[in-house]
């Protein structure tokens, strides 16, 4: 099963709406991951999903870009991962 993270910041370190410089520096902070680190200071993700910028939140996306599920809170990515496994029939 092909799987990856799409990481996005809605705020920079100073509480500002995240901009390109924020995601570039955050990418370095978290050890230069192989997945994208986006800046979403304009709240586009919140407008395109049930997420409300309640730090942190996740949505599971299918290969067809369907929103499978969304959660709020720390470590909720584990539940999203379980939903992905179920969706994939694993």
């Amino acid at each position, binding site marked *: *099963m*092909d*799987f*990856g*993270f*799409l*990481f*996005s*910041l*809605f*705020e*920079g*370190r100073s*509480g500002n709406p*995240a*901009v*390109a410089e*924020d*995601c*570039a*520096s*955050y*990418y370095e*902070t978290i050890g230069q991951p192989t997945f*994208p*680190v*986006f*800046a*979403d200071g304009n709240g*586009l*993700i*919140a*407008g*395109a*999903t*049930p*997420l409300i*910028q309640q*730090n*942190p*939140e*996740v*949505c*599971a*996306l*299918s*290969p*067809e*870009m*369907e*929103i*499978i*599920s*969304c959660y709020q809170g720390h470590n909720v*990515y584990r539940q*999203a*991962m379980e939903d*992905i496994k179920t*969706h*994939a029939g694993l």
Partner: protein
Amino acid sequence: MLRKGLLLFSLVWSISACQTKGDCSTESDADSDGVNDCDEETLGTDPESADSDGDGLSDREEIDCVSDPLNADEQCYQCGWEHNDPGDLVSTGSEVGDVIENIQLVDQCGDMVDIWDFHGSYHILYLTAAW
């Protein structure tokens, strides 16, 4: 990923077709872009131009990074993401069960990235504030 597979299939088909039709040569690369004339014919790219869409990237570079060599608006992402948008997605809304809108976000390399280019794989979209 799907698109990459189609490109690979096209290239393999091209070689096969050329061997039987004999109307181009897999040995010839008139524009020296690293894509032989048979493959250029199959892909629809210009065998006389190394950069068919004139976007500054050669046809070979765009094929290698899974970008459309015939679309000047589509170029290689600096971070190496593939352009996997199949071209036929339709957003259905913003709730669970919907196909997400094709939003564009800036990435750590400074490129504006279409989220639909991550089509073809499962993803966890993680939204947080920097710490």
